[in-house]
């Protein structure tokens, strides 16, 4: 049985079809990335899968339970960390955790233990009795994640969990995501951060204009756009005329990246041969030379350019 299954989900707002027959499945224990530009339909889809919003058509199930027919039961199986840090600012971290625990029906004694354990895991135990209004964005985000885990859910929905955070908080949250996944939790990660998705996700779905543009592993998705393979090269001196590089027959496009040049073309092996000849003729030495496929970012741009 799939952890999450969406079948032909549709949502319309006035004349706009925000989500158009979106279907996908998320397997037990995988980290599934959900990518898309702003307004593509990511949040609406996620809200429908999590039972927050009713779809106009289609179905969504969590562990086989229909979220429209039985939203309360479905919601008991998941934990959600929405994009905005929306804990109650006038309550303490412990107060927010207790509220979430009580709503999920975690019994009193177990709840106290669970709250302390989670606040400790996310580095907030020392501030457990401070009001959230004095917390930094990173602390609020960690609290939201801790609240999402209060019922020990098998499936976690994380919406932009590292957006706008400092490097330390980002690293802590990514480490926790990996740890949670190792412990068997299924993670549905909505993100704008392509690199994050590339590093964390087993599979990603790209949504554009309310429709799924592609679903696959990051590596397989990158392989779908072979035309953007490239060679990254650096020379010991850059005193030659760059126009001469552009004359190389295998090179379609050149981009400067810091002290390196990225040469695009569909046959990187031919580019390498030409670059070696070029270096010899220009009396410059090759410092480094790497062939690279398209990044997930390039794939994403390619898939969402329409």
């Amino acid at each position, binding site marked *: 049985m799939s952890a999450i299954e969406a079948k032909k989900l549709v949502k319309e707002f006035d004349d706009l079809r925000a989500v158009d027959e979106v279907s996908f499945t998320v397997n037990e224990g995988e980290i599934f990335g959900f990518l898309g530009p702003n307004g593509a339909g990511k949040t609406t889809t996620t809200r429908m899968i999590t039972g927050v919003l009713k779809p106009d058509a289609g179905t969504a199930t969590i562990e086989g339970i229909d979220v429209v027919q039985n939203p309360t039961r479905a919601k008991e199986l998941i934990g959600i960390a929405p994009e*905005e840090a*929306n804990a*109650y600012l006038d309550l303490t971290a412990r107060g927010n955790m207790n509220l979430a625990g009580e709503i999920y029906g975690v019994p009193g004694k177990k709840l106290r233990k669970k709250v302390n354990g989670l606040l400790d895991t996310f580095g907030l135990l020392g501030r457990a009795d401070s009001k959230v209004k004095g917390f930094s964005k990173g602390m609020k985000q960690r609290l939201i994640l801790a609240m999402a885990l209060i019922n020990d859910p098998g499936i976690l929905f994380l919406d932009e969990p590292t957006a706008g955070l400092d490097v330390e908080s980002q690293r802590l949250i990514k480490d926790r995501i990996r740890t949670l996944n190792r412990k068997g939790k299924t993670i549905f990660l909505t993100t704008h951060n392509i690199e994050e998705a590339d590093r964390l996700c087993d599979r990603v779905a790209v949504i554009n204009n309310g429709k799924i543009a592609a679903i696959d592993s990051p590596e397989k998705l990158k392989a779908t756009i072979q035309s953007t393979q490239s060679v990254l090269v650096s020379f010991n001196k850059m005193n030659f005329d760059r126009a001469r590089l552009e004359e190389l027959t295998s090179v379609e496009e050149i981009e400067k990246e810091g002290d390196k040049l990225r040469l695009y073309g569909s046959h990187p092996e031919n580019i390498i041969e030409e670059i070696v000849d070029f270096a010899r003729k220009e009396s410059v030495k090759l410092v480094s030379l790497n062939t690279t496929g398209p990044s997930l970012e390039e794939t994403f741009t390619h898939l969402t350019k329409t």
Partner: protein
Amino acid sequence: MYSTSSLRKSLSIAKKDLRIYYGKGPVVIFGILLPFFFFFSFLIGRELPPLSLIAGLGGMAIWFTATSISPVIAPMETRTRTLERLVSMPLTVFEMLFGDILASMTMGITLSGIPIAIIAFILNLNLVDPLPFLLGLIFGSFCFSSIGILLSALPTDTPSDVMMLALLVKFPVVFVSGVFMPPDKLPGWAIIISDFSPLTYFVNLVRVSFGGSGQAWLNLGILVLFSTFFFLTAISLHTRTLPKRL
């Protein structure tokens, strides 16, 4: 179905509301200060019979206090985006709104029960019908809290929008409900309107409970009907407008 687990969830929501919203500006101004000064401006320089005084005070206190916290919760939760967190948890609209109403009722019963007891003591009035009075306090605060919740179904994230709407409803209702003078002394058109105001029946109930003439249980029954109507309408409207507030 509403179960004990549902009640526990509603109580958690009520506890949260009381902790967060009790000290908020609009609640203090419209729930405590305004009825306090309103009552004194009505009292000073007038010779009122004790029964009219206690019924007027009781009616005004419960009306303003029970409708002070309930309209504020939904727009504030929309603005701070805590509403999305709540609806993403295993919590029904019924459980959530009933929790909000319980918080509002706590405020209504406390802040109207205490002044009624003080005035009764000062004026040496005896509570001759305590059971319908206590039930009236409970259903009155439930009914008026539901009206506040109903007004907050407006899909906005600005508390002042709802407060403005609430004031438009709150003041006219006070004037036609026998708070300042018995309904039979109102002009003809106002008597008709007063029949449709739940506050009229609460004010009557207080008057009867302290020895005035009338039927306590009939007034209580009508209050229960109004409570059911406003609560169910509030749930229906909130269910409809909730997606617009996310």
